[in-house]
């Protein structure tokens, strides 16, 4: 089996119902005060980049989804995760 190298980017974000005081502060105390009142909401999060080897792109994504859930890399009580980008390492 030939394995390839992949890079997967994951963003963890608080669920909409869980307040995000970091995002709120950026919007209220920085953006709104500096004239960017067209920005109605800011949400902060955590960003992780995984480098891994897998048989194919699908497998790579499966591995990451599995470890996110199994090891509680994201906390399902408060967070959602989003896989942003998946690319083969050049």
């Amino acid at each position: 089996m030939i394995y390839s190298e992949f890079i997967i980017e994951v963003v963890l974000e608080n669920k909409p119902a869980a307040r995000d005081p970091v995002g709120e502060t950026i919007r209220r105390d920085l953006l709104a005060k500096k004239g960017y009142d067209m920005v109605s909401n800011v949400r902060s999060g955590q960003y992780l980049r995984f480098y891994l080897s897998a048989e194919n792109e699908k497998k790579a994504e499966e591995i990451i989804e599995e470890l996110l859930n199994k090891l509680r890399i994201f906390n399902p009580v408060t967070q959602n995760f989003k896989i942003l980008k998946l690319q083969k390492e050049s």
Partner: protein
Amino acid sequence: MRVKIAVLDFPGSNCDLDTIHVLNNVINIKADLVWHNYFKESKYDGVILPGGFAFGDYLRAGIIAAHSPAIDEARVMLEDGRPVIGICNGFQILTEAQFLPGALLQNDTLTFICKWVMVKVENNETAFSNKMNIGDILNIPIAHAEGRYYIENLKELEQNNQIVFRYSNENGEYTKDSNPNGSLANIAGVCNLERNCIGFMPHPERASESILSPKGTSHGKNFFYSMVDFIQKRL
């Protein structure tokens, strides 16, 4: 029979020695400080996960510690009804280990908060509150950056009487001003359905001697007396 309690020591724990001091010298019971890798549940009647930090609290406070072998040992105690208590960082570890419902998020002030607050007893049938009365108002300090309790299904938590302590003012009212960190429903401590596992953000070990309290109180003792009483009733 002599009660023996373990206080776990994770890399970064810093309320471990305070907790040991109070158990040994104020409550006068035997307590061992146990490095997390060497913890064996069979030697103890109860365990306390103390405050501080654990493994740098990278990713989220408590998540790395929640995967440590010490938590597998503590799970055996949890399942056979011995008290498993988490204070501050210990509470964060117990929610991440799913011993307790909910999660602890960054304070809504975005700052570390270290100050004396008041909490009111809501449930006095747990391993960390059974020597208290419902409605008791206790002086106790907090010291944390991630103490904002959050849970999606608050109703279920209330229906199951799992809220043990809430931040209140001196009249026992649950106001916004008396809620230091933005916790949902002023929640300061919760328990599991079996009442033997409790997580609590404030620090009873810092409030057990009147000389340490600005108001001359020593309400923190009641938490540890409760734990000892709970163990003695089981034995």
